[in-house]
């Protein structure tokens, strides 16, 4: 059987990639994708632990996370469409009206 540490290592790697993407990408959709990556990295470790300890709660939480992520993606994409209609861009460096 694959040891749980491997899953965790993969999860950490995915989370790091997601974090780096969320902080560095300028395209709003890409930031979104990165965040999805971070969520699923977390899901992976949850599932791994659920298997390790033979505990189903972790798997249930993962379904919740997926549902929330789906809802979030729907709201987020709607927002970006609205922003794009107004400003003809989704570069988040240029969406900076809320400032001093």
């Amino acid at each position, binding site marked *: 059987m694959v040891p749980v540490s491997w899953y965790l290592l993969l999860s950490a790697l995915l989370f790091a990639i997601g974090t780096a993407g*969320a902080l560095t990408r300028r395209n709003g959709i890409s930031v979104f994708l990165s965040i999805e990556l971070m969520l699923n990295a977390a899901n992976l470790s949850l599932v791994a632990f659920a298997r390790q300890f033979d505990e189903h709660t972790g798997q249930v939480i993962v379904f919740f996370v997926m549902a929330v992520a789906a809802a979030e993606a729907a709201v987020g994409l709607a927002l970006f469409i609205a922003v794009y209609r107004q400003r003809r861009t989704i570069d988040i*460096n240029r969406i900076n009206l809320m400032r*001093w």
Partner: protein
Amino acid sequence: MLELLWLIPLLPLVGAALNGLLARAPKPVTTAIGLGAPLASLVIALGCLWEFVTRLHPAGQAFRQVLYPWTAGDLNIDVAFRLDELSAVMLFVVTFVGFLIHVYSVGYMSHEHGYRRYFCYLNLFMAAMLMLVLGDNFLMMFVGWEGVGLCSYLLIGFYYDQAFPPFAGKKAFIVNRVGDFAFLVGMFALIERFGTLSYDGIFPVVEADPGLVTGPYVLGLTFAGFVTLCFFIGAMGKSAQIPLYVWLPDAMAGPTPVSALIHAATMVTAGVYMVVRSNVLFQLAPGVSALVAAVGAATALFAATIGLAQTDIKKVLAYSTVSQLGYMFMAAGLGAYTAAVFHLGTHAFFKALLFLGSGSVIHAMSGEQDMRSMGGLKKYLPVTFWTFVIGTVAIAGIPPFAGFFSKDEILHAAAADGKWLLWAVGLLTAGITAFYMFRLVFMTFFGKFRGTHEQQHHLHESPPSMTIPLIVLAIGSVLAGFVNVPELLGGNEALHHFLDPVYAQPRGAEAAHHEMSHGVEWALVALAVAVALAGIFLAWTIYGKKGLEGGRTWAQRFPAAHRLLANKYYVDELYDRTIVRPLAALSRFFWKVVDTFVIDGAVNAGAFLTELTGDLGRFTTTGNVRNYALYFFLGVVLLFWWIAL
């Protein structure tokens, strides 16, 4: 009738409230309320007094009426009124003289602005004063005491659109606070020791066991000494004794009937009433009693000499009042409480008469108060003149007018006690009093008129509402002395026997007066009258024959003395230098340094820091989502780091 006692202070209070609230009432309504309330009080008071004198006094009882108990923590004080021999005398004086002055005010104030406000304050004063004299405990007395102080302040500053009256009002109020503070401290001491402030809860207990209050307390004083000293300091403020007398002469800035009612006949005698009321304690504090007598005598002489050189007709009467109050305290300090109350009563009559007379003169002179512009008013103001002369003769102590009996009683008390220095001071003061009062009469009513033609044209006798009170008070000034004719002159000292129940039982040594032979007593009486006549004669030779010229000659002969007296011994200047200015400097320090610099500085520094933080912190709010995400990420890292540690 006695069960209506509570209405006596309440009715003027209602009158004050009505006149204060009915802003649009026509003038006759204001007059009806303003006069009706004290008249109703007077009628009820006379009824109560009649019942008291005929029924309770012979049975040796005092009347108590408890309205409701007032509780504060462990302290229970009844809101209650009391009619005993002492409050009976005060009740009569206050309601009777007070009502007459209300009547007089209708005429005097008829042309003034603020007619309604005036009667509102005057009724409020009556309510407070009646509460003071009818209260059954020291707290009730204190409430009235503060109430009359407030009304005094309001009425001194009645002409608030002029510069000086509001200042004089403030001065009176602030100087009185000094005394009131001591009065409060004395009451706290009584509460601590007896757990009550009611007269019945203190005096009989002390009389039964004097050891309770003669033990050492604080500052090297016995308990009785401490309480009486505090009370006497309170009395000094209210009754204008050295060193707290300075407010009374300035209080003349108020309307003249106010001077007559508050600053001559009633309020300023509250201190005397308080001392006599506490006589049980004062008798157990011989040191403080001696101080009372000494301060009284000193005040009597000091104020009388100032009166010699004043030219403002009301100022002369004001210093005369201070001087006569000094007499009363001298009597009280000597243990001659009857003499003090007796002089209080007679003084209320003749001094109210003199003030109202001077008001009539000022009214006729269109507001002029300087006697140097008067003269020869005898033929223009006959009623005022004759009543004024009666008052003057009464205060000068010529038999058989009221002042003779009461003043002689005080001098006799000093002599009988062997206090010859006090006696001599009193005698000298009597002579000076006769002199400056007749100086006033000669300058005002005799000689030629010295005012302007316009003033002369307007000279007129006052309306009946003013002259009738003058006549009634003049009759009182003639007759009031007969309530306490000494045995020497064939009387039976009625007032003394009447007041006996409110005094502590004489204790051995104090009771043993030096018995003097009738011959000596007659000689002393004759001497007192002779001194008064000498004062009158001197006033006649200087001011009666030569008018102002005579006074000027004497002023030139003793320029230093005249300057000293005309400037009132520079006491106001002394207080200004030693108290007012240092206090003002200290206040300025607290204003400019402590308040503006320290307190405002601290607040402003806080505001500055907040603003600085905001100014620097706002640069983090870039509006760029990626920056926020980075802060968030760093925050999470820090949080995990902290948890991991």
